[in-house]
């Protein structure tokens, strides 16, 4: 079972501590990433359907047998298809696009923004620095 409820750093005393195996924490993390095959859009950690119960059990069994997270994901993918993984694999052009696009957009957008700015900016001496509060009453 999940190990601990830590305190906020601002409080002097911990809220509560209950140490149990890190394996259960791993199992629960995995259960939140595997999609129930009988429900609308729920991970097996939430679903009340019977098959989700069996899938949860399968995760626990595999962990007790020493399987790694990756092996467990692969097992479920092999059995139910890519559909059950809420964490899609970066595989094939689609997978790479999905995982790469946000970061490419960020870098590309920054470059574009910098380019636009350079295109219209004057030399550094011409630019006046104005403290933000000086314009606080604006128009």
């Amino acid at each position: 079972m999940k190990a601990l409820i830590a305190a906020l750093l601002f409080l002097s005393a911990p809220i509560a501590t209950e140490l149990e195996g890190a394996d259960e924490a791993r199992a629960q993390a995995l259960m939140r990433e595997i999609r129930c095959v009988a429900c609308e859009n729920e991970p097996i950690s939430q679903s009340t359907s019977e098959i989700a119960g069996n899938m949860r059990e399968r995760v626990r069994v595999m962990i007790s047998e020493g399987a790694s997270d990756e092996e467990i994901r692969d097992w479920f993918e092999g059995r139910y298809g890519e559909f059950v993984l809420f964490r899609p694999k970066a595989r094939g052009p689609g997978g790479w696009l999905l995982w790469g696009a946000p970061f490419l957009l960020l870098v590309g957008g920054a470059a574009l923004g910098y380019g636009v700015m350079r295109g219209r900016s004057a030399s550094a001496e011409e630019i006046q620095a104005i403290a933000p509060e000086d314009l606080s009453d604006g128009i």
Partner: protein
Amino acid sequence: MIELGHFAAILALCLSALQGMQGLRGRRGPAGMLALMAFGAMVVSFATLIWAFVRSDFSLALVANNSHTLKPFLYKVAGTWGNHEGSMALWCLVTLGFGAAGALLLKTPERPSFDARALGVQGLVAAGSLAYLLFASSPFLRLVDPPLQGASLNPLLQDPALALHPPMLYLGYVGYSFVFALAAAGLIENSVDRVWAKTVRSWAMAAFVPLSAGITLGAIWAYYELGWGGWWFWDPVENASLMPWLIGAALMHSLIVTEKRGGFAVWSVLLAVLAFCFSILGAFLVRSGILTSVHAFAVDPTRGLVLLIGLLIYGGLALGLFAVRAPLLKGGPPWAALSREGALMGNNLVLIVATATVLLGTLFPLIAEGFGRQMSVGEPYFRLTFVPIMCVALVALPVVQAWSWGRVDLSAIWKWAAAFAGICLVFAALGVGLMDIPLFAALGLALGAWLICGSLWELKRRAVTWPRLSRLPLRVWGMTLAHIGLGVFVIGAVVETSQRYETTLDMALGDSTRVAGWTVTLEDMRTVEGPNWFSDRATLTARRGGQSVRMQPEKRYYPAARMPTTETAIHKSPSGDLYLALGDRRVVDGQVRWTFRAYFNPLIDLVFGGVALMALGGLISVLPRRLALARKRATETEALPAGEPAE
């Protein structure tokens, strides 16, 4: 009676179309009158719908399909918008309400034709919504053979937060329709400038605040009603409301540059158009049912298609107008990359990329299906893309919010870097070393603290001395509150997601189990009956130290809808919520046992409270100008006799 409502809605449609024509021709007076009359007609129309629900008039198909005589009064009323047709009627009511508000409040000095055109575009948007209501999803259809009893409202929706959630969300979505109208009017009149930005800022906030409230109410509802202990699931419907919110946040920041410096005009207009497009896209995603979701309760594919066509027409027209007029817009004075302008551009970049990420993740399963690949995109994807991208902006925020317009003097940047490194080190050492929480969570807490301290520091910097704090403009207070709210939210979200305790209990009467420091005992189990449901109600006692609380989670069954719901029991304490949901009854070796899902959600209120602070900050920053001026005058008269040097 309902025919009167039907007639009133048709009248509202005609009036809105007229308003559109008069407004676009530049006639402020008639357009305003027509907007008020259209709103009046729609109020009558919507009132007849509510009346039909209250009276349980099952000759109306909508009531027969969605109501029940035994339903409590509040949910009879709220049931009016708890379904597709009724919610579209509410959408129209709110659209016309914004039109009426615009007719009364929109008085840009010396620009009556701008106001008229804005009202005109708003009229066209309203006419489009009303046409969709009347021709594609009419709530006014009668049944030839009315049933004796109705099919009832989905019991999950019979909840106070959910009665308020759709109106709030619609106020936000539809609020952006008025922002859209202002953007279109600005393009038509070629008057996208500082005055324009000032006007749009108030209206954009009038949409942003209720949208925040609506999203939060939805999250709170999901938290206590769905019984999973969580508050955000990266579900398509949630994402659909998050996207306009993110665009709205980007717009708020871009408009600052347009108002103060006249820059970013093109970009602000584009965002104003996009905010509305994403609102309709959100409605389309939710209504069409093309995405599987746990939240969508009123789904119809063909109507989704009509919505999509509407989006293409309105969005396309606006973007076309934008393409023609954008090159004519003027930029502000020049600025260097490292400047307040540059910082706000960075803010916009991050928010737009974050929106694009949410859009990509939400639509990707659909796209992949087109290529014959069945995929799911869920929480892990957003955690690993959206969250780090947003963190870039959050780390920079306290540093750049003090930057000056034009260009910035970077001599102090090392102090900032040292302060950030210091906060991270302290939190990492305390968190990982002393309290044994994961490193990423400790750093997340450091980020929250960084945001809060940074905001307070900036507040102090602007005030110069403490006594002057009370004389700061309201906008500075608004900004500070919003950014502190962001920090509070980050802390709540980090603690809640990383330290949530989750377990399944299996108990017979009299059994005790330990849950996160609490000892929970199952005392009693009985069947109770409500107005339109009966339920299994468990009574448990939770003890911690000398404290003892009674908790009663239920599993309700609504016979009319043939559906069970979970009524969770939540005990709030300063450190977090103890959360119990009743599961199944089982018989093991002749003994009756019950399963419960038990959670301890630490500091979850900070998540909701943080968003509330953000909304409050927004609200304060656009408090009526008159109030701000009155304050200013008061402080000036107070300041002068004291003989303080003017700045």
